[in-house]
């Protein structure tokens, strides 16, 4: 199963996988959303959307629909808060 940022739980971390699709906005890449970088889910807004992530030291909020485009490998040993 493909895991994306949208499936992360609060406090969970993952590593961004190589993405083939070029639908991800370039702005996200500039903010550090690049393959190999670590991504952490910091906060989820009320009503479950948008979500607030820390990637590469950048704290940004994105919508769930965008989060679904970012594939991940979950880092297993992170404690789920």
């Amino acid at each position: 199963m493909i895991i994306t940022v949208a499936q992360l739980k609060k406090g969970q971390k993952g590593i961004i996988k190589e993405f083939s699709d070029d639908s991800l906005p370039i702005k996200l890449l500039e903010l550090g959303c690049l393959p190999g970088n670590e991504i952490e889910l910091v906060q989820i807004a009320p009503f479950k959307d948008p979500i607030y992530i820390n990637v590469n030291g950048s704290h940004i909020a994105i919508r769930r629909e965008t989060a679904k485009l970012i594939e991940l490998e979950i880092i297993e040993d992170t404690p789920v808060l």
Partner: protein
Amino acid sequence: MSKQINVALIGNPNTGKTSVFNQLTGLKQKVGNYPGITVEKKEGVCKLPRGVKAHILDLPGTYSLNTTSLDESVAVELLLNKNDKNHPDVAIVVSDVENLKRNLLLFTQIKDLKIPAILVINMADRMSRKGISVDIPLLEEKLNTKIALVSTRKGIGIDKLKELIADYKSLSTEQNVDITVIDPGYFKKLKEAFPNEDLYKLWLVITQDVNFMPIEKKLFKDASSFATKSKSELKRLQQKETILRYQFINGILKETYKVDLAIAKGFRASLDKILTHKVFGYIIFFAILLTIFQGIYDWSGYPQDLIETFFASASSWVKDTLPPGVFTNLIAEGILTGIGGIAMFIPQIAFLFLFISLLEETGYMSRVVFLMDRLMRPFGLSGKSVVPLMSGTACAIPAVMATRTIENWKERLITILVTPFTTCSARLPIYIIIIALVIPEGNFLGFGYKALTLMLLYLLGFGAAIISALILNKILKIKGRSFFVVEMPNYKLPLPKNVAYTVWEKTKSFVLGAGKIILAISIILWFLGSNGYADDFKNADEIVTNRIKTEGFSDFNQTSIVNELATYELALKDSINRNTYNLNTSALSDSLAQKQAFLEERAISQEISSYKLENSYMGYMGKAIEPIVHPLGYDWKIGIAVLTSFAAREVFVGTLATIYSVGSDEEQTIQNRMAAEINPKTKKPLFNLASGISLLLFYAFAMQCMSTLAVVKRETNTWKWPAAQLVFMSAFAYIVALVAYQILK
């Protein structure tokens, strides 16, 4: 003569770029627009060591030179166009110490343009608290540049920065990254086609999304000699470029930048937890809004009273001091009352901007965006629409411009169209004066009725905006991908200096911008109101005096004389009983007779002036439109004010001030004068609950602002949308006001 150095300040949003700008230029700054577009242009002058001067240009915040918005492309065009008179001799890239990695992406791009670049690492005071250490000399060497470690909060490092700017000629212009490696074949062909051009520059021109200067693109008209790439291929290459740059940056930072993660967290996380909480988050947001309204209404009352009194007495002073004549009347009645009408509202506007800039500076605004996005989406809006809608409470013009951060065109258009419904500061003068006249004293849960009414009007504005957004969302058929990306900056204590500059700048431009129109309209109105062609106007004194002799005073004046006399007598008798005054009966009746004579004289002059006004040019104009405004509960005087405020709402109060003060000998504050106005048919005060509410509602919904229409035209690039706004909002306002008056009267 020493030439000025052209300096461009560039950097990511939230790096404290504006603080650096403020530190460098102090009050010697000027805010305007780039020609032809509504991007804000801030420039200033800075004195450097050794008598050198620098012209500093603060470019719009951008994350990179890959432009996706007009704001960003302004920055890029300036850097690319060597012929622009503001083309920088040196670029200062402002970054903040915590996000150095991301900020360096932009830095390497600017460096690759071969523009001398200085790196400013701002917020250096946070380093120890965040467990960060930077090896500055090594970083300077790796990036081939000079670095100034700055703390605008503590005022550290600015002198070093000035030194570096003055010495800009010693900076290296070597590139950091060779981007041709991402597709050597393509760049080789490009080089062959344009042997004289810089490759990175060409690359930027090719990939630019938004372009407002067609000159550069012309370059490629006859570009058959090299293979063009499709949009998605270009995007893939941009991705590769970004990755390449990050590899370069990561390699450097590994050696120079250390952060102790254990120290870094804590405060931010716990504050986020509360402020974006599903219950407390909204409660806090609502409480903040309530405080803002209470502040605008109550706290600014004190300075406001002072200003109002000042202008009233200045006007009397002019009349008493200068020789009587047309010119004196023009100053006292036309100009001073007109300016006073707007100056009165400076405290409120300043308060509003104070609150908004505090919310922005602390980083709380981004949390509001985060909190509200999901709630706004069903209405076709985005969380980012909250910022325009909130700044719309200051002024719709910057608010419409602020919609540029919304990436999705449909969400952006809807935000632009509904923003004018929010209660802007120009409505405030009208609301405040009408509320003061028609809403009774009293309070509910500690909040005054008047403050609550004001709050309700704000909510009504938001409500109208939201509901029309919902309708527009259903009607408009625009497809578009939505990319919602919001940076959540660190919480910061606001810098008093930045807040002060914002409040000063915004208040000044509001007052000056509005002031010009108001002054002009006041003078015209004064002329129209104090001149007339008919005999009725010229012989007004005689006609009215005769009428009073035969018919007596108007009912309103009769009762008000009786009432005032009774109050006066009661007060006098009370004083006698308490032995404050020692008066015998004849002295008492003497002073009563004197009071009565005074009151009658005042009533005569009032009736003369209102008769004059009725028969002046303005009176005729007002009478002509009366049938249209009468069903709303307005008389022809209010009709005139509604008409003149078509250009800008704030003119309304100034107009009434001018209309009512024309010809009256005794200076009264506008509010008292309005309270004394009676409806000739019902013989009751003209400003009662029904007509007051009708006016409030009319101004809540009507599109009475030419400047907003102009900005909407510029932002949407067509007259279609502003025209639609004008027609629908005005019609809606008229109908609502009509219904309200007919029900309440």
